[in-house]
């Protein structure tokens, strides 16, 4: 259920590391909690962030919540297609529903592996 090859933040973002670059999205658990997404607000190419910075917000039919950077980085691409089709994040959070491509500029040491993240979701679900 939880992809083994990714790193996770406690705030339910995932990071796929590919050399010095990475892809960022929100987890299956996060999209289930939010429900049907209606709007995703994302930063712009070239913006830089520290780990833990708020980088946008996600609105669903139920609520709106912020999303946080799992790692210090610079934005190199934004998934523009989500502007008209935010439901992609519901349908495929680890694939077509990716949010950002980034150049990683900080450490990933504090992120969780799949097993540790599994525990976080079990705690949060109660």
């Amino acid at each position, binding site marked *: 259920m939880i992809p083994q090859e990714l790193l996770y933040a406690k705030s339910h973002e995932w990071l796929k590391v590919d050399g010095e670059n990475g892809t960022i999205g929100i987890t299956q658990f996060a999209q289930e909690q939010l429900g049907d997404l209606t709007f995703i607000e994302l930063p712009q190419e070239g913006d830089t962030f520290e780990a833990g910075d708020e980088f946008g917000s996600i609105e669903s039919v139920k*609520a*709106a919540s912020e999303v946080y950077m799992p790692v210090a980085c610079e934005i190199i691409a934004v998934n523009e297609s989500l502007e008209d089709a935010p439901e992609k994040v519901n349908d495929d959070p680890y694939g077509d529903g990716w949010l950002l491509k980034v150049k990683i500029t900080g450490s990933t040491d504090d992120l969780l592996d799949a097993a540790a993240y599994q525990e976080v979701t079990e705690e949060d679900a109660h």
Partner: protein
Amino acid sequence: MPYVPHSPEDVREMLNVIGVNSVDDLFAEIPADLRPKSFDLPKGKSEMAVLQKMEKLAARNTTDLTSFLGAGFYDHFIPTAVDALVSRSEFYTAYTPYQPEASQGTLQAIFEYQTAMARLMGLDYSNASVYDGGTALYEATLMAVRKTKRRKVIVSEALNPIYREMLDSYTGNLNIELVTVPHNHGRTNIKSLTAVIDKDTAAIIVQNPNFFGSVNDFTDLFATAHEHKAVAIMSTYPVLQAVLKTPGQMGADIAVAEGQSIGQPLSFGGPYLGIMTCSKALVRQMPGRVAGRTEDGEGRTGYVLTLQAREQHIRRQKATSNICSNQALCALRTLIHLCLLGEEGLRRTALLSIERAHYAAERLTSITGVDLFTKGPFGNEFAITLPVNAFEIVDKLTERGIIPGCPLGRYYDGLENGLLISCTEKTTEEQIGIFAEILRGAI
């Protein structure tokens, strides 16, 4: 008489339940230096004493003057049906009901109002209204600051000075830099405005027709603003949108207006409503209420508040604005008024007002020493320069039953002889003739 429903015992009991010792403790969140030192309110009086005082004050009003006063607020004819319809008890409530399961009528009325406003301005969306035109302009400014994450706002000096003062006062503690670009003999100085737009500009604010009545096309100016990723904000006079190029056609991102001129009596300055409309790209920054049309599970049409994720009743600390109210009843008046007039009726109102103003300009400038100050095209309002101080003329003519207009010296240094004059469809040629002759005698 205190006119406060809570007895000291009630207050004590409520504080006990909350678990604080005093009303001051209740507001401990607010730093002491941000709290009002005093509300400067006199002691309460009996109902009878209050009524007597109010009647005395009301008796000092003169109500039978012929007025050529505009300056952002216009005395248009309001069909009698507006009052009759809006005073139905279903609409008369101190609190606007929004719960969709109980308030379909109210929500639909707001939705229809929004549709009418968006069409009038030629833009995509409208909110349910805010307090007044000046507040709408301030909220528009903040939309631009949030959207661009920039702090510099360029303001035309030909924007209504009342609004400029409001912007100054509202943004005073917000670390926003207001750059005012001087008017050019009553014209909006497009060249100078264009020259100061840069990469730090959050918004450019202009008015059409401007304070002096002058009509402009801001298409090129707005294009320059967009090249620098700045937001183009236009303040307008809604009645004239029936005949002028709309903000949307010029490429404005946000158009705001004082809605008084459609359906509200002047009524000593309020209550009015602020019209706020914007393009699709900015709709999520729009503060206040937005009603939307949708379908329920069975496919039936229903109306709901929508795009409320940035409203304070959803996420207080993330809210776009602390404005939590609209002017629903005034907005309903505006909608009913517009529906009764129809597209053609609004056009005729605008054209008649413009026609009367041009006739007045002709008659007044035929007086020796009186010149037209407003150069180029104007709508239903224009400025003249007198050979004498305008404040004196206002005093003299008011005694003769005519308010000749707004003395420009009140807001603009060096224009002490300037007078701003407006006409509506209610202004008659006879009134204009009498005004001209009395003015001729007074100079």
